[in-house]
């Protein structure tokens, strides 16, 4: 077994511990920033849907504010955003490197995209359902929880799957500026030291991650579709 590993992965087998660590770092980045971003995006997505024109709590000023800020952040390429955020990242996380230093830029990078996705997922909820909720005397908060979120679950799961896959991509980018993780590993060994086995192995690991997320997402979405 050891021999096989050495033959297939001549370079990686020398730094296996570092490789394992990079996997853990990637998982940490995806889970922690994904979770924080999910909560934020859910809130922003709901705000967008209910404050838009003819929404449940129509507030054009609030809607426009969120709408424009999201567009602003979405127009900045992630790698530039990381650099631009460094001072704030230091302030919030105490450091701009390592997993701890990547969480803030990852959240800032993915939340605008995620919020838009949640917004479109909630917009798929039939207006007629919301109207019937109003007609039966539910309050706006009850409508958000009992109708928008409940009826939107399948769509929310679907867009979360897409977003998690994008987030895995972002963790690879953030690695380049000192974040660690599989992206960092692939760049340092695979690219800079020209060790192809490191590159290919990184791809395989990321492929496995993405597949797991996709299968899980599809399963959950189907479970909530009646």
């Amino acid at each position, binding site marked *: 077994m050891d021999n096989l590993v050495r033959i297939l992965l001549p370079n990686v087998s020398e730094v296996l511990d570092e490789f394992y660590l990079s996997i853990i770092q990637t998982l940490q980045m995806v889970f922690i920033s994904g979770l924080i971003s999910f909560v934020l995006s859910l809130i922003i997505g709901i705000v967008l849907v209910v404050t838009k024109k003819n929404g449940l709590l129509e507030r054009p000023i609030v809607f426009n504010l969120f709408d424009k800020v999201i567009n602003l952040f979405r127009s900045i390429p992630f790698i530039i955003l990381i650099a631009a955020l460094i001072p704030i990242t230091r302030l919030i996380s105490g450091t701009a490197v390592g997993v701890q230093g990547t969480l803030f830029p990852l959240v800032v990078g993915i939340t605008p995209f995620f919020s838009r996705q949640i917004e479109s997922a909630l917009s798929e909820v039939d207006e007629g359902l919301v*109207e019937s909720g109003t007609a039966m005397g539910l309050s706006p908060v009850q409508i958000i929880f009992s109708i928008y979120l409940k009826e939107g679950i399948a769509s929310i799961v679907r867009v979360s799957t897409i977003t998690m896959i994008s987030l895995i991509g972002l963790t690879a980018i953030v690695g380049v500026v000192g974040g660690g993780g599989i992206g960092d590993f692939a760049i340092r060994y695979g690219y800079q030291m020209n060790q192809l086995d490191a590159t290919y192995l990184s791809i395989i690991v990321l492929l496995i991650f993405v597949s797991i997320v996709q299968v899980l997402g599809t399963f959950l979405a189907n479970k909530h579709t009646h």
Partner: protein
Amino acid sequence: MAKEVIRTERMAKVFTDGKQSNTVLKNVNLSINEGDIFGIIGYSGAGKSTLVRCFNGIEKPTSGHVFFEGRDIVSLNARELRAIRRKIGMIFQQFNLMPSRTVFGNIALPLKHSGLSKPEIKRRVHELLELVALPDKENDYPAQLSGGQKQRVAIARALVNRPKILLCDEATSALDPKTTRSILYLLKKLNRELGLTIVVITHEMSVVREICQKIAVLDKGDIIEEGDVYTVFSSPKKELTRSFIETTSSLGNVTQLMDSDAPMIRLQPGQLLIKMSYVTNSVSEPLISYISRAYQVDANIVFGDIQILSDHPLGGLVVILSGEKSRINQAIDYLKQKHVAIEVLNHG
């Protein structure tokens, strides 16, 4: 005098979008009494849906008042309005059931924040499932139900808070004729057994004819005609009302037959083609056989359409009369005496 459930006073609704404004309701004065089945009919775009949404405050009138049991709901705050809405049930053309909830979950939804205990909710939901004749469907999802069953669930959901009144917005327009009848029959039963006041919004006169006692005709944001169904059907005042009524009767077909010179109504010299419309209860008298005997006038019934409306017959016959000219005129005078409206369509 019957108790008023909903009354509108000089109610108007204007939608404004930027500089454009669109007047949907102009000056609506309506009064709906307890126990009524009140039909509001109009073509699409007449403002029916907006009108009914003003009744439960989903739309806020631009001016005027809407009274629910004497309280002006236009002046209420959001919390008070929600309390009123629990006393006003509403069902929709597209049913609007929650796809991710079972039938039970859908019917129980309005009770979710009512403070009722789980067993109480369960009992109430089961009562309603019995009432709408779907006792064994509580665990089904809406996607598993037929259109008629979906509307029954929607009715159960609308009634779960024991409302005073049920608003039906084109509730049968997405259903086939047979299912429509069964839903209308259910509504009639609810009106009779629970004393439920029902407002029916529709573009189908047959729906009004089937269950309503009162009718208002809405055209371009105005109520152009209003009254009890029998009076409006038997003597409509406005052209639009007449055209709605014609959709429910085959007597209008005679015009098409005349246009196409159909052999069945081609006349011999001396014959007369007439339309007899019953406007009172005279239909129970043997008029046709009487004129044949008394005036020796032959009456050939080309076709007829007589319906029962609010327990009274309504409709008429298209008849070819042949005989001596003076005798025919006497026969027609006799029919007029008996309050049969006579329209001479053609001479031979």
